[in-house]
């Protein structure tokens, strides 16, 4: 299973970035390889509009099964998201990455 997180940093102790379109990092955890990798999304600050679709496009390219985030997608981002099979889990806005993964596994946060 491949998990994507919107994150404010690059490690398990980083906080979830509650924003989807303007998240600072996208973290990918592949539980088969037990590997956490970070992708910077910093260039999004240069976009005045349309951040949601661009970030979602980037997430889709990383091909996760599940996205764990805070507030969830806006209208345009949701439209792009719906072209993929990725499951969106929201409500992790005030958690650290490791807590968010645990919360998901124990069904404390859902879609």
């Amino acid at each position: 299973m491949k998990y994507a997180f919107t994150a404010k940093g690059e490690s398990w102790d980083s906080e979830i970035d509650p924003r989807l379109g303007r998240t600072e990092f996208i973290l990918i955890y592949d539980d088969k390889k037990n590997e956490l990798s970070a992708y910077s999304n910093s260039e999004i600050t240069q976009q005045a509009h349309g951040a949601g679709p661009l970030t979602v496009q980037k997430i889709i390219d990383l091909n996760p099964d599940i996205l764990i985030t805070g507030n969830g997608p806006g209208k345009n981002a949701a439209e792009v998201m719906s072209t993929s099979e990725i499951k969106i889990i929201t409500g992790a806005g005030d958690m650290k990455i490791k807590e968010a993964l645990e919360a998901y596994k124990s069904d404390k946060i859902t879609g």
Partner: protein
Amino acid sequence: MKIAIASGKGGTGKTTLATSLSSHLSETQDVVLVDLDVEEPNSRLFIRGDQTHSQSICKQVPEWTGDCSLCGQCQEICNFNAVIKVGTQIMLFPELCHSCRACSELCPESALPLKPRKIGMLNQIQAGNLIFVESRLEIGEQQAVPLISQTKDYIDNHFDESYIIIYDSPPGTSCPVIEASKDADFVILVTEPTPFGLYDLKLAVEVMRKMKKDFGVVVNRDGLGNNDVLDYCDMETIPVLARISNDRRIAELYAAGELIFSTIPEFKEQLLLLERSLELSTVVDPV
């Protein structure tokens, strides 16, 4: 003559001034009042008359034919993220589109033809001798500029230079204000004598100077706050064209949808002062 009534700060009295100034001038001259605050047009609340014309305003946006090799040039060329390639499709976000046509023109397979999209309504109202035109942005549309620009085109096509044209502009200092004031012969900046009013006035002055506009200030709610706005105008040699008192009766009339000048003589005095300094009066009033 085209006069734009603008402000940095919102709620300083643009509409109060625009509706009274245009109605008063229309008693002796041909005047068109145009509400260019298309995101929240409210001049109409003060204008009573008959609607003589109404039309939809559209902008041209691309539509994907669904048949292309997905080369992605459209996404690369778009500065506004209005077109992106996702998987095996091209997705369009028309509310982000600035109608620059680049994606459509550059598409090697002509897969993005332009289609009109309704962005608002334009209405014309005859109120006595005053002609009033307003445009209203469709709910959900994000861009005021194309609607403002097409409303000005309508004005230019229908009213020649014998008319005094008054633009009630949007607040702020961003694109919509620039579009609304860029071809005005004179810009009136309405402000209030408070720290907020001064802060936003400075931003608006900066914009007007950059656009090389002839402009002056009207202080509304005079007597409120402090003297800093007047000191600033003095220091920057910006003409203060009129000072409207902070008067509860004005707020009451405004809230009731009434024009101010016909009821409050002190307001009318300031209006005449403004008209004289803009050389709009036809009758010379005794000073």
